């Protein structure tokens, strides 16, 4: 009887997305971390926060964005909670936009996640620029390259998210 209270389908879906987040973190921290092009690494995790909100709605976007952001901040090793704040916002925004304004197509997701990646890079470089007083040209170039290297990851993130959202978890 207690089992009737629990929506097992949603619980299963939550576990699936949690696994998806862990896989994305693994790719970011173990694979992309080792690949530097012109001294810059990709950072595609904002797209992961966006994809959950995009397919599952704003509430799921906020919850999983928070989990992702928390792990992301820990993995980055920086003394910030920047992503813990930023990722839920991205998840929420993606959910709201697809609920009211956008279609759930690749191009719409590309626009959302590309914007998320740009904002993520901007937030990261802002601290370096303002507090460390680093050379603005070099900082902006690093931010630009980070966005550029991260952009191709939008496609696998979209197709993975789409596939997960279509999974039949009723059984």
């Amino acid at each position, binding site marked *: 009887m207690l089992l009737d209270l629990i929506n097992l389908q949603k619980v299963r879906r939550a576990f699936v997305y949690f696994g998806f987040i862990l896989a994305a973190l693994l790719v*970011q*921290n173990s694979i992309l*971390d080792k690949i530097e092009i012109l*001294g*810059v*690494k990709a*950072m595609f995790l904002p797209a992961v926060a966006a994809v959950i909100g995009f397919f599952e709605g704003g509430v799921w976007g906020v919850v999983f964005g928070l989990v992702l952001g*928390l*792990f992301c*901040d*820990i*993995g*980055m*090793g*920086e*003394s*910030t*909670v*920047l992503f*813990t*704040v*930023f990722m839920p*916002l*991205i998840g929420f*925004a993606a959910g*709201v*936009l697809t609920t009211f304004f956008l279609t759930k197509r690749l191009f719409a997701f590309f626009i959302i996640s590309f*914007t998320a990646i740009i*904002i993520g890079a*901007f*937030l*990261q*470089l*802002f*601290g*370096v620029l*303002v*507090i*460390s007083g*680093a*050379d603005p040209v*070099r*900082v902006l170039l*690093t931010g630009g390259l*980070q966005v550029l290297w991260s952009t191709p990851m939008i496609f696998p993130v979209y197709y993975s998210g789409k596939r997960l959202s279509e999974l039949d978890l009723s059984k």
Partner: protein
Amino acid sequence: MLALILAVALLSGLAISRSEGEATTLKDASMSLSLPAKQASHGIVGWLEGIYSYMFKYDKLVEENESLKVELAETRRALREAEAANAENERFRELLNLRSKFSSFVFESAFIIDRGNTNWSRIITINKGEESGIEVGDCVIDSCYNLVGQVVELGTGWADVRSIVDADIRVGVQVGEGGNAAMVEGDFALMQKDRVKLSRFTDETQVLEQDILLTSGKGGLFPSGLTVGVVESVHTEAGGQVEYAVVAPGCELGALTEVFVIKDFSIVE
């Protein structure tokens, strides 16, 4: 909506970003929860790297072993000479009634459990924190007394160390034979090449390539005499005045697994 996201994230991020000292409760709790996973993954990665090294780097290791044997022989010879010079020095000290040089460190050994993986900083996380008596500002070295960095934030069972190549690092150093004062400063562009900048020279300071830089000990944060790095290249202005030098750190940041936190020190020059 975009402006709202940007504003909220920016304000929150800036409010807490790049803070130093005691970790926030949220971060401390999440770090404590993730520590076992980090330590386990670090152990697995180390084990895999060990197997890889054994399988594919055997010849290189044999070659390195041979060159180290030669280096050891040379070092032993230098040590014998140094012992004689030391004895002579001791006699002169007694004659002139001078106090002996003395340095004493209180160490805490720790393992690196995480390396921050961003384009914007070089922070490493170690597996010891406030429970071991480590404090913010403590200096971290490797087994050869090369400066690794400085503790910037800590909690229970972990501490974040700003590495020597981070863009925000500042260390007072002595340059060359004259021991003139200068400053090693992190530089964002050089950080991406794992290098730092030597600047703020006095007029009489001469900087040459291959000069070894030692901590000056001024300011009291770092003990004097730790190796910071070696001058790799010197950049001069049109008039010949040295503008800055690029320094390669003494420690091998990428290869480090164990470090030592200097919790307390006393030095008599």
